[in-house]
């Protein structure tokens, strides 16, 4: 369920609610942009961070994207989901921002204190942490493009067609990137002595 729906009217259909929000932005309603950001800002910012690898650059990218949303809202025709449109804008702005810069993507977790799951025993937790560390190490081997596709599919919840639209490439390319990512992860994990079922 899009967060925009929670902030507006729960009885309204999802797509209509988001589309209405964009229409309000197109009409110059500043509150609508604030609601949109409250609804999708977290996802947009996470994607911007993933693409740029730099928090201040991600700030800039998301701001630029919101300005572009403000300017582009009158042309949004509601043919796809709003989140895919928004992510497409962030993707494009991030590409522009990265030109001429040499920024490495942030590692997963980025050293932020993470809440621990209280249920497992200390030994189980240690084992899970190690397994997770190995999977993260395997994911770190992926290129930015492959990792972007994983983010769009698994965190943003986009469909195959939407992922292709955001990345600006054919659907077949997204399938190839997923297949490559799978092969790469499996290869790294096998080398490290793990099987996939140990990771879940």
């Amino acid at each position, binding site marked *: 369920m899009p967060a925009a729906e929670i902030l507006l009217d729960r009885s309204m259909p999802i797509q209509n609610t988001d589309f209405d929000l964009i229409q309000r932005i197109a009409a110059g309603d500043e509150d609508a942009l604030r609601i949109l950001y409250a609804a999708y*800002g977290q996802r947009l910012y996470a994607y911007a961070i993933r693409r740029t690898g730099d928090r201040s650059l991600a700030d800039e990218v998301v701001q630029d994207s919101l300005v*572009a949303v403000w300017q582009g809202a009158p042309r949004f025709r509601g043919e796809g989901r709003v989140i895919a449109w928004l992510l497409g804008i962030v993707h494009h702005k991030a590409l522009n921002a990265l030109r001429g810069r040499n920024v490495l993507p942030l590692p997963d*977790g*980025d050293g932020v204190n993470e809440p621990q799951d209280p249920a497992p025993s200390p030994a189980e937790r240690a084992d899970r942490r190690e397994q997770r560390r190995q999977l993260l190490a395997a*994911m770190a081997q992926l290129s930015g493009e492959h990792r972007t596709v994983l983010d769009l599919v*698994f965190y943003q919840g986009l469909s195959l067609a939407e992922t292709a639209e955001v990345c600006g490439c054919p659907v077949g390319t997204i399938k190839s990137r997923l297949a490559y990512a799978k092969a790469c992860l499996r290869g790294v994990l096998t080398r490290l002595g793990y099987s996939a079922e140990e990771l879940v």
Partner: protein
Amino acid sequence: MSEHLKVNDLLPFYAAGSLDDARRREVENHLPTCEECLLDLELWAGVSVEIGKSNRLVTAPPALAARALMRVRTRLGLAGACLRTAQLLRAQSFLVQGEIWPASAAVMALGVIVALVSNHVEFVYFIAPLVAAASLTMLFGPANDPAYELVLATPTSPWKVLLARLSLVFGYNLLLSLIASLVLLVTVPPGLLGTLILGWLGPMAFLSALALLLSLWIGTPNAIAIAYILWIAQHVPYKSIGMWMEPLAWEPVVLSYQQFWHSPLLLCTLSILLVGIALWSTNRPAFGLSQRP
């Protein structure tokens, strides 16, 4: 495609929970019968959990919307428009095919050398429109633009994108031709510089605009071929051909056609009209722009 391959392609989206009911059932019916898909699903489920965790650690700064709105308010007016235009031009300069720049410069330099060595300054007049027309056929559309689908996904209108690229590339060709004309001052009296520039300016503008429009409608190779034929046709020595053929009944037409290419005002006016049609065409799927290569 076999059922296994089809379901295997769906597994990441199944793990992410983004499949519709019908496809989800399809996956669930297949999974108990396929060990490989089960293993893949376990891998994707692990990936999904980790990606979810790592993204949840990110917190979006709450003030970004307010800052964006402040920028929106301050950007209104002439200064804002100029800033946006500059940003658009800068962004598009990276998306124009990179080989256009050195190729145009190299051909123009070659033309100047030939003109100087052969002492035929009109060679620059001949070559400048050809260089400009060829480069403008590679500006836009699925066949020429590696970022075409991305362009369509952004809020900047396709016509603005095309106008920005047109300005960049035509401006570049204009600059090259001006430099070439200045170099020719080695052999041409300075008083004739204006005549020299007017000589190529009109044809260059018209042929470029025509080539751009045709490239949007019928593709780059056809556009280049037609533009070049139209341009070269005026230089065909019809009178020499007439020595072996019947006298040309359509000689007045030939003369008018040649005269057409020497009418800068008419050519520039038509160029503006053609560019207008080209910009309008970018939003019209009927002209083939929406087709994928």
